């Protein structure tokens, strides 16, 4: 039996107790990558030797009787948006094809300190812009449940790697749903923490006021462990919040008493597939059965979230991506005779169409004469969306709903329809705009056998409550034990 057959939480506990060695776990996962990634295309870069060296060091440390860190040798796959010192870090873009950061992202430092084993970098939509991996400059990742379908995105490779059991856990980043949406489509757990809970230092920026790093896992337990390892204040990120990190893993199995669950009617409106609605309502019934008080809440401004998001995120992106100008690093054109030509050609050659679309959108929204009617207005609506959540959370502990309106769509199905692609994030975006934490947990399958996700949202810094609520549901169901046929 391969260690990849264990759930991530079980493997993590066995690593902690020393029952399983880091080398054994790492070897099995590296073998799984060799076996399946040809079909899934989740990884952009795997460094077997480095991964095994980390595992060997950790086992040696343990055999010397030294204490080991929280991750205890658990292998982790990393979205290509996070800087790893000396390793190729491309952000899914030609622009950074030859870029190797001279430094580790804060979360990578944290993972090293917690004795995790880094497996490599996973595929993503270019600069985290997209919901299917089709915007990656390098490859299209396939959904392990149906290889003709997308795993979602932009953290496509991190989600698909975990779903295909090529990694027990992984890190992604979520700007408008880029963790929760692929987790939902891949039938795994994915969590976006509160904005400011995890440092963004070394996370290549897409939209700075929305980006947040978070875990993927086959189960809630290892997701909690991974979040515990990466969360915490970082003085190098001014937006990182200085609040103690609770021990999520130690309270995880305590059910919440008197849990109040809100159901937002706006999340069950037109456009939601019946089979998704059915699965989510059934999941909410599970909570009822556990004694939760389920009541309706209203998020009246959530209908503006996509419009708001597609002004704020591209505005910030248009600015964040100006550093890729071919001068100091990254792609530089071979054919330019003037400075302006060099800028235009370098950027024109190395950015993909979706990145260009968002840069243009953002540049337009920030232009003088349009700034007030687009960017400033979007900020105002964003505040209203946040206030909706504040009001709702005065009444309930958790808001439950679908992650996506449909299950995984076909690769190529929406690639000529950017607006249709944007709608894939309709239920996840408002959490980013409000800065609140959200988690996607598997809650069933469509008749065609595609995974369905349940989204739980909580008030800022209520990750502990969110994880405990997710775990309550997980114990009552067996979705996390299902694996795609491929794995």
């Amino acid at each position, binding site marked *: 039996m391969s260690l990849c057959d264990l759930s991530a939480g079980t493997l993590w506990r066995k690593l902690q107790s020393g029952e399983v060695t880091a080398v054994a776990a790492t070897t099995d996962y590296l073998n799984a990558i060799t076996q399946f990634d040809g079909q899934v295309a989740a990884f952009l870069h795997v460094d077997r030797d480095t991964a095994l060296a980390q595992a060997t060091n950790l086992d040696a440390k343990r055999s010397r009787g030294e204490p080991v860190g929280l991750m205890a040798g658990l292998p982790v796959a990393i979205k290509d948006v996070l800087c790893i010192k000396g390793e190729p870090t491309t*952000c899914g873009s030609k622009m950074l094809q030859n870029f190797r950061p001279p430094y580790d992202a804060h979360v990578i430092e944290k993972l090293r300190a917690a004795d995790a084993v880094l497996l490599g970098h996973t595929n993503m939509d270019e600069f985290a812009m997209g919901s299917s991996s089709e915007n990656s400059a390098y490859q299209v990742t396939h959904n392990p449940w149906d290889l003709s379908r997308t795993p979602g995105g932009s953290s496509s490779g991190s989600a698909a790697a975990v779903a295909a059991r090529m990694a027990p856990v992984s890190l992604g980043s979520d700007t408008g749903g880029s963790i929760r949406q692929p987790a939902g489509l891949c039938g795994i757990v994915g969590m976006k923490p509160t904005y400011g809970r995890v440092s963004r230092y070394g996370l290549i920026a897409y939209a700075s*006021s929305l980006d947040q790093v978070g875990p993927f896992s086959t189960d809630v337990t290892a997701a909690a462990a991974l979040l515990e390892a990466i969360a915490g204040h970082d003085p*190098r990120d*001014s937006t990182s919040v200085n609040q103690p990190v609770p021990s999520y893993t130690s309270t995880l199995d305590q059910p919440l008493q008197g849990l109040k669950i809100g159901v937002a009617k706006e999340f069950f409106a037109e456009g939601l597939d019946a089979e998704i609605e059915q699965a989510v309502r059934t999941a909410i019934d599970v909570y009822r059965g556990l004694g939760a008080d389920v009541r309706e809440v209203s998020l009246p401004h959530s209908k503006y979230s996509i419009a708001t998001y597609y002004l704020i995120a591209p505005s910030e992106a248009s*600015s964040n991506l100006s*550093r890729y*100008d071919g*001068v*100091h690093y990254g792609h530089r054109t071979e054919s330019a005779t003037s400075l302006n030509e060099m800028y235009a050609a370098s950027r024109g050659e190395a950015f993909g169409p979706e990145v260009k679309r968002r840069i243009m959108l953002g540049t337009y929204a*920030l232009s003088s004469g349009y700034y007030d009617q687009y960017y400033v207005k979007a900020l105002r609506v964003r505040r209203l969306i946040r206030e909706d959540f504040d009001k709702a959370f005065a009444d309930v502990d958790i808001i439950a709903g679908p992650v996506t309106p449909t299950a995984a769509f076909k690769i190529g199905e929406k690639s000529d329809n950017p607006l249709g692609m944007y709608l894939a994030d309709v239920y996840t975006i408002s959490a980013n705009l409000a800065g609140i934490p959200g988690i996607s947990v598997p809650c069933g399958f469509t008749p065609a056998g595609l995974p369905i996700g349940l989204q739980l949202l909580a008030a800022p810094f209520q990750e502990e409550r969110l994880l405990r609520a997710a775990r309550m549901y997980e114990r009552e169901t067996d979705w996390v034990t299902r694996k795609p046929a491929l794995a």
Partner: protein
Amino acid sequence: MHYQPIIGLEVHVQLQTQTKIFCGCSTAFNPDQPNVQTCPVCLGLPGALPVLNGTALRLAIKTAMALNCQIAKFTKWDRKQYFYPDLPKGYQISQYDLPFSFDGQVELITNAETGESRPIRIIRAHLEEDAGKNVHDETGRGRDSMVDLNRAGTPLVEIVSHPDLRSAAEARQMLEELHALLTYLEVSDCNMQEGSLRCDANVNLHITKDDGTVVATPIVEIKNLNSFRFTEQAVEYEIARQWKAFQETGKTIKDAPKSTRGFDPDRGVTTIMREKEEAADYRYFPDPDLVPVTVTDEQLAAIRSEMCEAPAVMRKRFQSEYQLSAYDASVIIDQGRLLAEYFEATAKLCGDGKQAANWVTQDVLRVMKERKETIANFPLRPEVLGSLIARVTQKQLTIKSAREVFADLLTAEEDQTPAPSMAQIDEIVAAKGLAIVQDDGAMETAIAAVIDKNPKAVADFQAGKQAAVGALIGQVMKQLKGADAQAVREKILTKLSGG
């Protein structure tokens, strides 16, 4: 037809923090080793984030307080976006609509003799990061240009004045005033060669036509002036150029938008950089990587308590407290805070501000200049100089003797550490017999002896040769170095004319 120049300045001041404004890199001036004072943050690498250096904000607030500005309780950071190789992020972190300070004023001395002054209003002062430096191939062989990012991220305060200045001389004066103010406060070293203080000047003319109507010429911004002299020359040239252009073309501000010119110091002319200000759209928006700053009253009070006296205030006080002329006060103040403090300590110790000012502005400054020394290294401390001057004011030493002692103290210093002391004054005075002789008996004796020994001179004098008395005085003075020559003269005359 006559014209009035209208001039406003935008002054950039590098703050003297140890580290950059948004990262921990050194701000030291280091052009010989490009790109060594850099890190992921100031290189603008993917994933790097800025964190505000609190000292930069504190020094900036100090600057604004000295400019009598209002300090905003809430201030934020904005991105000013444009592409340029010395700007690694593609945007500069600056302040747009909510600068940390606004509405100030600086007293500009308009008449050095009388000390007359006029307020120049400050629109705003904001904090931002400096860009790097593009280094172009100057060999003419068309080699690649290089970028040095050592300077990128140095904290910079931009001070924007109203167009309240009326001549090139006033523009220079304003820059000098800011230089004095900022160095007094120790917020900037204002080293203009190193680019710590540089300015842009906005210039145009208001022309009164013969029929009494007033028109304005198109506004020109002269960029990057990095010395007092160039500022004055550039503005002077620009005024003349605009006057000539108006007479030739009659073009007014309505006919041409603002243009940008550069100053060529070798030719002493301004040349066109950008014909029309291509409505540069910087797409300012709040930097989402930084949090807005709230400043409390307690913080402001703490900063205020660290403020030293502003040079303009000190200048006025020196005039009233030590009876200095406006001119002397300015000479002292303009030498910097350390010299002003040196003067004041000396004045207090000798009890005569005017004498102290004479000594400091003449003797001390002359020696400093000869020795290329700063006041910090000047060997005579204020207590020694003060004590020396006190002996003059108390008529124990003549000015001439005091100068001799001053010179001896400095000569002695050359081959001895510790610095000259007050005891040494006494030694030199005693050794050279410089003490003023107030003992009439001693003078009488010396005069009698000289008269006895010089019968020829006495005879010449009595024969009507007035000049002969000079030789006698000289001989008495040789014996009594500290004697008052006037008193000796009177006594000799009395004696020879029958006394």
